[in-house]
C-alpha cells in the first residue's frame, strides 16, 4: 500500500466524541488520532457546528434558580483562582500526541516499560477509569508480537513508526479497531521501533505457541 490513505475512527465515534458522549478511553484514542489527521479535525469542526446549531435552536428552559447576580458574585471568587493557577505555557514540544503527553505528564521517564516478549514492551497509562486498559505498546524494529485475539474491543493508534499485520500496513496516526474473533500478529517495521497507543476492554487471549506464557503477562490491569 503506497497511498496516503489512513485509517480513521468510524463516523459514529467522531459524532459521539463531538457530542461528548464517548467514554474517556475511547476519547483518548480519538484525540490521539486527531493530532495526526487533519481530515478528521475538519469533520469534527463541522460536527461541533452541528451540535451548536442543535443547542441554539432548543426550546430552552427559562425558569431556574440561578440569577445573573449569583453568577457575577461567583465570578469574583473564581477570578482569584484563575490568577493563582495562571495559564501553563502550553508550548511544550509534542512527543506522541498532546493527549498522550498529558497522560504521561510530559515526562518520558514516568513510563514504566514492562517486557511482554523479546520484541514487545508495554507501559500502562493512568486514566482514572477501568472499562479499558490504556497503555503504550512498543514493538522493536522487525519485532514480531505473538498471534493473539481479544475477548473485548481493542483500539490502537500508531503514534510513532509503523507496523503491519495480515491485513495491512499501519502508519503514524492510523486508528485501528479490533473486535473479538480477529486474531492478529503485529510485526514492527524494519526501519525502526513502533509505538502505539492501545485501549483494551478485556483480557487478551493468545493463540500462538507461547500462548500459555504470554497470557500471564498480557492480563489486563485497569488503572
Amino acid at each position, binding site marked *: 500500500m503506497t497511498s496516503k490513505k*489512513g*485509517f*480513521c*475512527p*468510524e*463516523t*459514529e465515534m*467522531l*459524532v*459521539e466524541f463531538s*457530542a*461528548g*458522549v*464517548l467514554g*474517556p478511553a475511547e*476519547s*483518548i484514542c480519538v*484525540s490521539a488520532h*486527531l*493530532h495526526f*489527521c487533519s*481530515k*478528521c*479535525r*475538519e*469533520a469534527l*469542526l*463541522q*460536527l*461541533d*457546528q*452541528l*451540535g*451548536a*446549531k*442543535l*443547542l*441554539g435552536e*432548543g*426550546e*430552552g*428552559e427559562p425558569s*431556574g434558580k*440561578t440569577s*445573573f447576580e449569583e*453568577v*457575577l458574585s*461567583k*465570578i469574583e471568587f*473564581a*477570578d482569584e483562582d*484563575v490568577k493563582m493557577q495562571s495559564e501553563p505555557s502550553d508550548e511544550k514540544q509534542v512527543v506522541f500526541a*498532546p*493527549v498522550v503527553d*498529558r*497522560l504521561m505528564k510530559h515526562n518520558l521517564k514516568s513510563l514504566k516499560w514492562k517486557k511482554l516478549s523479546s520484541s514487545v514492551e508495554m507501559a500502562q497509562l493512568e*486514566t*482514572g*477509569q477501568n472499562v479499558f486498559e490504556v497503555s503504550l505498546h512498543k514493538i522493536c524494529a522487525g519485532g514480531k508480537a505473538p498471534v493473539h485475539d481479544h475477548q473485548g474491543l481493542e483500539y490502537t493508534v500508531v503514534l510513532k513508526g509503523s507496523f503491519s499485520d495480515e*491485513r495491512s500496513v499501519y502508519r503514524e496516526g492510523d486508528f485501528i479497531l479490533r473486535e473479538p474473533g480477529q486474531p492478529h500478529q503485529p510485526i514492527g517495521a524494519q526501519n525502526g521501533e513502533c509505538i502505539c497507543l492501545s485501549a483494551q476492554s478485556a483480557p487478551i487471549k493468545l493463540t500462538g505457541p507461547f500462548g500459555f506464557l504470554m497470557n500471564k503477562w498480557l492480563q489486563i490491569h485497569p488503572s
Partner: protein
Amino acid sequence: MSANGSGAPKARSSKRTDKLSLLLTAVGNQDKAAFEELFKHFSPLIRSFSQANQHEGSYPGLHEDLVQEVMIKIWQKAGKFDPEKASATTWIYTVARNCRIDMLRRKSNTQHLPLENEDYWQETDENTPSSLLQQKRSEDKLHAAMDRLPHEQKEILRKVYIEGKSHSETSQELGVPLGTVKSRVRLALHKMQIFVPFDQQDGLIYD
C-alpha cells in the same frame, strides 16, 4: 481561488458579526452588560441541555450547577474567543459540552480522572484565511441543510447531542435497530455536507 489575485475583489472575511458573537467579543473585554445579555440568551438553553441528560452521574440540581459553571467559564475564557474562527454559539457549545461531561464523570467516578474533557481537544492549525472562510461557508450551508432534515434524522441527532445518548441508547429508546440509527445519522451528515473520513474509506478497514 488564488489568494493573491490582485484585481479580484477581496474575499469576504470569515469574521462572524452576528449579535451573539459581538456580545461574546465584548465579554472578552470584561463587559458586564454584554455578559448579562449572553446570560439571558444562553442560560435557558444550557439548562435544557443538561435537563435532557438523564445519565449516570446526573442529579436533580445538575442543570443549575451547569448553568453557573458554564457561565463562569465563558467569562473567564471569552478573551480567547476569536470570531474569525468560530461563531459564539459553536464556541459556547464546546464549553457547555465539556462542562457537562466533566460534571457527569466526576459524579459517577470514584477515581481521580487525570484529564478534563477539554484536554481531548487541541487548537487546530487550519487557520489560514481561506480555510477559515471555507469553515464559515460550510457552517452556513449546514444551517440551511439542517432546517430541511426529515424529522426522523433530526430526532436522532437531538438525542445524541442534546440528550447525551450514545447511538445504541438512542436505538433502544426509539425502538429502532442500531443499524438504522447509524444510517440515519450518516444520511443527515451527508445532506449537511459533513464528510467524515471513515465513510470515504469504502470499508477499507474491515476488508
